[in-house]
Structures are given as structure tokens and as C-alpha cells.
């Protein structure tokens, strides 16, 4: 992965797609290494599926270049591109058997080679002896695997997956995530997967690209995106976050001081943070806030919700700002009585460590 210097497996340069007056994909540039598992993450309508269709050749970019191993794909119709796609609806041919579907892209092979190849592919997705089954007799999970096998049949350099797990039940989904990841590792194929589920993207991808209204706003691994989001959108997409408005007033050593409604806070800056004197947003993950601090801003607990693994509390600061705080629930199990716990009405001080506070554009 990431063997720099060589030609990327998939390269996008300033790819833009306009539909009428709207822009579905705006100036996206990206380079994926061979064997990388990349997720495009974003809410519906953010342009992630359109980007996938641009790579597959079902749409033509308004401007920009798409390359696979340095080969410019412009002007190549979908059936001549070295990429394959797994469709959200699976798009399995209802009038063909499982084998007929998988062998559809293998028309260059002899009959025996083809059936051997179908066998291998079916084994790969754990559907041995399913060759002659009709699509309508398959379960959702089985269909998903046939679609995967069919898309892999031509050994594409890049496999595009449009919400491949979207139609599965929750339990099956998690199981399939593991399989998909293992298969991708084993084959070394570059995967580009579209999903709207942050958990799925974090569980599967080497790198995640977050899309917002057609733009690729941040690319990075799961930890980077979670810990060091570039925008409020990214911060909110990957998990619960307190977003507090404030103004940058100065520096304190390596930290930047931000004046909020409930007093000044020290924080670490992101690359895109505003300069001194400007408005900014502070992002604080609820689980990074400590309760029962001896010093720090004070607040009143307004709500406590026991969630099993964690306890979520809501704290009203003295200016009225509401903060969500999440603490481990383990301590509650060790014989503590309810009266020993914080309840609504209790006044506490919060530990807002500078490492936990990130400055984002307003």
C-alpha cells in the first residue's frame, strides 16, 4: 500500500460532474494505491454514487481526468474499462442462473475454462454448488455474494462497490463486512466502496474519503477522521460531538485559547482552523470530557441516561450551553448505590483537556 512514486492504481484529477445547474461532483482529486480498500462516505445525495458511476463509465465527467494504472479512461465506454462494479441492487440477471450471471463477463474463455472459473469464484464467496440455482431462489445474502463473484470474475484492477451491504440485515451485515475485508486482502484488488454508514467505513477501509455536497472534504484513515476532523461536517458524521461556538483570542504555549460562552478553553488547532480574533467552532467528543474535576468550568447535570456500556449525561453550563458527556458505566456495577451517582440537579466541574478540544472553521 502507498508505494509512493509509482503510478497510482486509480487516479482522479479535478473530476467534476454537472447536471443542469447543479454540481453533483465538484473538483475531486484522489490517488489510490494498488490493493487499497477505500471508502467514499457521505449522506445520500452527496455525490458519492455519481463519482462511482463516473469511474465505471456510466456518466461522463464535465471536466477532469480518471486514470487506471496511468491509462486515461476518457472516451472508453463501460464495457471497455478495466474496472467492474457491484451494484447496490445487485443487478443480477433474473433470466440467468447463478453460473450464467457469473460467467457473463467471461465470454472470452473456453467452455471448460469458464466453468472452472465460475467454480473458483463460487468457492471464493462460499457458494459451492450453486451454479444452477435461479436468482429468485436465493436469499439476500446469497445474492449479495453472487453479485460480488460476478463483479470479480474479470479480475478488475479496481472493483467499485455501491453500498454492497446496504440491503442486508444488521447481523448478516457485520458478518459480511469481515468476509469482504478478508477477501479483499487475499485478492489484493483495489476496492472503492460507497457507503453512508460511518461504522461500516471505519470497519472496512484503509482510507476513507468523506464527501459533502459534491466535494471530497477530507481523506484519511478512521482514526485521523475521528480524532482530527477537518470540518464540523466530518466531526458530526463519524460520531457524536459537542460543537461549541467561540472566538480565538490568543495562544498559551502550544495551545490556542478560545473564548466560549462559559469561559476560555485551551484547544489544539486543525489545519483549517481560523486565525486569531476570528470566530471558530470547538469540537469536543462526549467521551473525552471528564466529570468530577477539581477545577474547570462548572455546570449542572440536567439528564442522566444509562446505556449499559456507557452513561450519557447532559450538563447545562452557566451560560446555558448544553454539553453531552459520556462516561464508562463500569463503575456503576460495583455496588454503588444510586445515591452515590450523579443525578439531575447536581453541580459538577468538567475536565475539558486541551487535547480533547479541536478548533474547526465556524
Amino acid at each position, binding site marked *: 500500500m502507498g508505494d509512493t512514486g509509482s503510478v497510482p492504481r486509480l487516479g482522479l484529477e479535478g473530476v467534476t460532474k454537472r447536471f443542469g445547474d447543479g454540481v453533483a461532483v465538484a473538483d475531486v482529486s484522489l490517488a489510490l494505491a494498488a490493493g487499497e480498500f477505500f471508502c467514499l462516505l457521505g449522506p445520500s445525495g452527496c455525490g458519492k454514487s455519481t463519482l462511482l458511476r463516473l469511474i465505471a463509465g456510466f456518466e461522463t465527467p464535465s471536466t477532469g481526468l480518471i486514470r487506471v494504472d496511468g491509462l486515461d479512461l476518457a472516451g472508453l465506454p463501460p464495457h471497455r474499462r478495466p474496472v467492474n462494479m457491484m451494484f447496490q441492487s445487485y*443487478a443480477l440477471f*433474473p433470466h*440467468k442462473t447463478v453460473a*450464467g450471471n457469473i460467467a457473463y463477463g467471461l465470454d472470452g474463455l473456453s467452455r471448460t475454462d469458464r466453468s472452472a472459473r465460475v467454480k473458483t469464484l463460487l468457492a471464493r464467496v462460499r457458494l459451492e454448488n450453486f451454479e444452477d440455482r435461479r*436468482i429468485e431462489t436465493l436469499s439476500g445474502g446469497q445474492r449479495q455474494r453472487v453479485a460480488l463473484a460476478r463483479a470479480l470474475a474479470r479480475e478488475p484492477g479496481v472493483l467499485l462497490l455501491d453500498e454492497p451491504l446496504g440491503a442486508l440485515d444488521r447481523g448478516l451485515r457485520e458478518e459480511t463486512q469481515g468476509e469482504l475485508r478478508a477477501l479483499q486482502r487475499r485478492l489484493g484488488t483495489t476496492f472503492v466502496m460507497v457507503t453512508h454508514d460511518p461504522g461500516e467505513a471505519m470497519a472496512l477501509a484503509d482510507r476513507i474519503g468523506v464527501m459533502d455536497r459534491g466535494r471530497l472534504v477530507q481523506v484519511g484513515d478512521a482514526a485521523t477522521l475521528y480524532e482530527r476532523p477537518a470540518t464540523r461536517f466530518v466531526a458530526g458524521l463519524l460520531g457524536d460531538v459537542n460543537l461549541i461556538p467561540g472566538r480565538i483570542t490568543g495562544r498559551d504555549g502550544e495551545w490556542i485559547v478560545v473564548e466560549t460562552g462559559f469561559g476560555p478553553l485551551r484547544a489544539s488547532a486543525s489545519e483549517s482552523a481560523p486565525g486569531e480574533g476570528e470566530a471558530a467552532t470547538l469540537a469536543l467528543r462526549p467521551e473525552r470530557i471528564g466529570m468530577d474535576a477539581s477545577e474547570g468550568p462548572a455546570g449542572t447535570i440536567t439528564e442522566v441516561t444509562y446505556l449499559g456500556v456507557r452513561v450519557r449525561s447532559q450538563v447545562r453550563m452557566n451560560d446555558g450551553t448544553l454539553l453531552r458527556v459520556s462516561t464508562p458505566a463500569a463503575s456503576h456495577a460495583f455496588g454503588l448505590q444510586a445515591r452515590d451517582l450523579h443525578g439531575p440537579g447536581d453541580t459538577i466541574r468538567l475536565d475539558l483537556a486541551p487535547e480533547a478540544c479541536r478548533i474547526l472553521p465556524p
Partner: protein
Amino acid sequence: MSVFGRLSLSLGLAFLYGPIFVLVAYSFNASALVTVWGGFSTRWYGVLFADGPLLAAATVSLHVGVAAAALATLFGTFAALALDRGGRFPGRPVFGGLLYVPMVMPEVVTGLALLLLFVGTGFERGLVTLVVAHATLGLGFVAVIVGARLKGIDRALEEAAADLGAGPLRVFATVTLPLIAPAVAAGFLLAFTLSLDDLVIASFVTGPGATTLPMRLYSQVRLGVNPEINAASTLLVGGVTTIVLTASWLSARPARSSVKSV
């Protein structure tokens, strides 16, 4: 279902089928008088099969029906494909409108208009003009039926085929066509039935020597009720019922389970 629902349904179906039942029953009446039951007999079928002009008219109708349905199916399928897959092309609204006109136009108007065209251009009237008129009539119906089916096909199926390396022609032959085949077949059968059933347009556009079955029946019917016509009607009803049941079975099957083998 409520009592009222059952009652409406029963009465409705009785109303629809009563007259047909009467017709079929009296085709087996031994008596020549339509209102007097003279016992069971198949004599009118004998008379029917000895009726040269009637059989000749039936042959004409079959020939015209098959030819017209074939043309209507071909052109109607083309039209449906162009409308569904052709995007916005110049003249599309006019094209869609023209396709629709023969379906809603009163038959007397269609018949007269086509006749005036044939006379004006010096076209000799006969089998060919019948086929042309009936193909025009059936074209729109085929386009509607095939178009509905096309609309129901997940575009991703065709994209998947292209993604797997199939060029446009192979995509059409291996994915689109098999999926619309039931609708194309249904369209053919319906166009054929339309042709077989048409009296009005045929009366206008036909020429000497090309008398269709409905025209022959009409000239007999005008003279009054006649048991031989009852026998002919019974056969026709039986035939058309078979065709319609086949067609509705074909077109009603969901796309997912459309083509059983392959």
C-alpha cells in the same frame, strides 16, 4: 369481502358473461329458431364448416391479423425502445402523440381517414391496405405494453452487462430482449386480436375480394339472429379467450420470474 361486495361482483360478472353464455348455449340448439330450445345438436357447426364464403373470410382475417400484428409488434417495439431509451430527441412529443392517436380516435374517423389516403394516393385497396390499417391500429398498443415493461426493468441490469464487458448490441440481445420478450409476445397477441375483431376500419379500407370475418358476420347479423352465426361466435369467443388468457398471463408475470429457463 362484504355481502354488498360479493353481490356487486356476482352481478357484474353475470352481466358480462350472461349474453356470451346465451350465445354459446344457442349455438348447440337443434332448432333454427333462436328463442325455442329444440334439444342439443352440433348441426350448426356442420353448417358453419360448409359455409365457403365464411371460411374464406376467416382465412383472410387470419392472414391479415398475423401480418398486421407482426408489423405492429416490430414497429411498436422500436417505438417503445426509442421513447424509453432514446432520451429527449427532436420531435419526441409529436412522435408520442401520433403513437397515441390511433388508440383513442373513434374507429369511423380512423377508417375514413385511411381510406381517403389510399384513394388519394391511388393505392389499390385489398389485403395490403387492411394490413397497413391494422398495423397502424396495433402499433400504439404494442408500444404501450412493451414500454411499460421497459420502464419496469432495472437500468442497473443493462449497466451491469456493459460493466462486464458487453457492447450495446450484446447488452440488448442478452439482457434487454429476454426481459421484454413476454411483453413483446403479449403485444403481438393483442395486436392480432385487435385486427381479428375490427369491423369498422376494415369496412372502410378494404377492397374487392378482401372480406374479413367481422365484415362477413356483420352482413349476416344485419339480417337477424342466425344459429350459424352463434356457432361461429362460439368458436371465435373460445379462440380469443385462449389468446387473451395467454397474453395476460405473459404480460402479468413479474419481471423477476419472467423467463423460466436460459
